[in-house]
């Protein structure tokens, strides 16, 4: 066993039972994370990035969502085989998560201090609830001014950026090995986003945890992560180091996505457009899921799902282009 390995997800398949049938939201996702690494998952809404995160925490809505297949090895142990009681010892302790909505993830009727101290100690003695020493310390760590006063206040008295700082304080207070951040800055303004990203970078340096960053924003990915997974329709279509993805994307979807972002550092040009829209998870597609929107699609793309093949040590690609099955001339 590789002692450097923190998380190893193998062939994860999460489905949702809907009135339209079974929808595979995550379909055969395989990836791994080293200790202290920062990995990003990027994709458009509905691509399965958030469901992947919820599967790791086993927080899927029940009974509609279900992990059908695969393994999630966290520090060598399969999370999917654990009982709910054992899972509680991992959730919020070894793996923590912060969500997009700092408005709804805090309890509106409890003081900030009470909520932070709850995160510190699962089973609290009564007297501990009123000891605000530790919560104050944590609020100070995430850069909240006047923490002595803030612990006595309620979530509605805080701004969005402050609530997200509090969420981060609660998530890291147990010193987790892995922090999953699901669109942590999407609901925030740019100047506040810059503050939160800076804070997360500093805390990562201080505590050495691994961060799994889930976002639709390539800018956040570029800033925060070392390695990226690009997801489309429940599958990983490309995996690479962040500089490789930004400078030399290989999958037609990644290329299109990057070209369609208006850039601040570039001269004005017409934006690239990926025609069509993301397929519904309940639409069954044979072949490559991106093929209906791909200008390079061929016979083979319609018939067979391209496997995720390795290009070099860190790069993986799921596309027929460049394989022997794909002929350069014959295009549809």
């Amino acid at each position, binding site marked *: 066993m590789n002692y450097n390995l923190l998380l190893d997800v193998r062939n994860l398949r999460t489905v949702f039972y809907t009135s339209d049938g079974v929808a595979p939201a995550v379909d055969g996702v395989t990836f791994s994370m080293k200790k202290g690494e920062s990995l990003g998952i990027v994709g458009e809404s509905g691509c399965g990035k958030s469901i992947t995160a919820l599967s790791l925490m086993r927080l899927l809505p029940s009974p509609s969502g279900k992990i059908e297949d695969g393994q999630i090895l966290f520090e060598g142990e399969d999370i999917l085989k654990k009982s709910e009681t054992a899972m509680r010892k991992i959730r919020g302790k070894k793996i923590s998560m912060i969500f997009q909505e700092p408005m709804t993830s805090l309890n509106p009727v409890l003081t900030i201090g009470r909520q932070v101290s709850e995160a510190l100690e699962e089973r609290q003695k009564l007297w501990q609830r009123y000891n605000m020493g530790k919560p104050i310390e944590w609020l100070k760590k995430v850069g909240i001014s006047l923490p002595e006063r803030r612990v006595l206040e309620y979530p509605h008295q805080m701004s969005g*950026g402050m609530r997200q700082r509090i969420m981060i304080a609660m998530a890291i207070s147990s010193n987790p090995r892995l922090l999953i951040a699901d669109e942590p800055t999407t609901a925030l303004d740019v100047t506040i986003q810059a503050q939160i990203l800076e804070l997360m970078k500093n805390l990562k340096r201080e505590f050495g945890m691994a961060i799994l960053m889930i976002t639709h924003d390539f800018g956040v990915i*570029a*800033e925060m992560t070392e390695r990226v997974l690009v997801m489309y329709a429940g599958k990983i279509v490309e995996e690479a180091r*962040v500089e490789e993805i930004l400078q030399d994307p290989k999958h037609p979807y990644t290329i299109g996505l990057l070209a369609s972002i*208006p850039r601040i*550092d570039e001269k004005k040009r017409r934006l690239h457009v990926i025609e069509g829209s993301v397929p519904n998870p309940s639409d069954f597609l044979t072949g490559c899921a991106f093929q209906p929107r791909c200008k390079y699609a061929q016979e083979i793309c319609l018939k067979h799902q391209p496997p995720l093949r390795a290009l070099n040590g860190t790069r993986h690609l799921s596309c027929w282009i460049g394989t022997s099955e794909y002929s350069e001339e014959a295009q549809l």
Partner: protein
Amino acid sequence: MNNSLTGDVLIEVRKLVKHFPVAGGLFSRTVDYLKAVDEVSFNIKKGETLGIVGESGCGKSTLGRVIMRLLEPTSGEVLFRGQEIFGMPCKEFRKLRRDMQIMFQDPYGSLNPRMSVGKIIGEPLEIHGIAKGPQKIERVKELLEVVGLSPSYIHRYPHMFSGGQRQRIGIARALALHPMFMILDEPVSSLDVSTQSQIINLLEDLQEKFVLTYLFITHDLSVVKHISDRIGVMYLGQIVEMAPVSKIFSHPSHPYTKALLSAIPKLEPGGGSRKRILLTGDLPSPIHVTKGCRFHTRCYMKMDICVSHEPTLMPVDKEKEHLVACHLKIS
């Protein structure tokens, strides 16, 4: 699109103010005012796109609504083709409204779920007595095609469409009356990047085709840079800097603009090499506006004068196109 320098002024906003009363105390008396828009002045030339950019709560959406007269202003004037619109009787104003349209951010909330697409787009035509019956249906089909939807969608309902398609329906509805001026309030903020680029391109094509003038309100600096000719940066109800796009991005002058530009994550590994200006704290409350410059509580270049005196918007270049409200630039 770049005829902005020769074109004439289509809309002129003069010292526009919108204060919302804040109720409190016994019997909900008005105890204070939330100063959402505070003495904003600018003009937009025909065929031009003016981008208004700012963080949430800076008053940019209220500004759009007041210009459309969806909210009555506290004071100030808006001149549309030289006519003052706030003093105008409702009947007369309704005729003028044909030429001014607004499109909202939320493609889910802004279309009536019980109305078919044909009805949604056809309604303004009927209200203004432009087309009825088969003529109306023809026009609706034409509009659907203009915004890149199939005319066969005419009998469908909003829930059958994706976010991007709904935004197209919203655009078709706004275009139905051949407007000259459109206020676009965060039209692409709720869309995914690949859909966002489709809508931005569509808006640019339509502008060229129908010679439209846009007021583009957004918080996204990259989008606003892409689509605008000129940009106004708003902070706490006021415009703090206004300039042509190239100038604002090459020579940002207000400390807030500088911080805003440096805060955008760049598409370079590790965020690139630039130095980031990190602002401390949040946007202060627009109810108790501090004396002096509104930005001084977060400003990293604060001087004594900033606390006591409010700076006014003044030109800083020869062409008088680049306006900044900051003591640093004036003295």
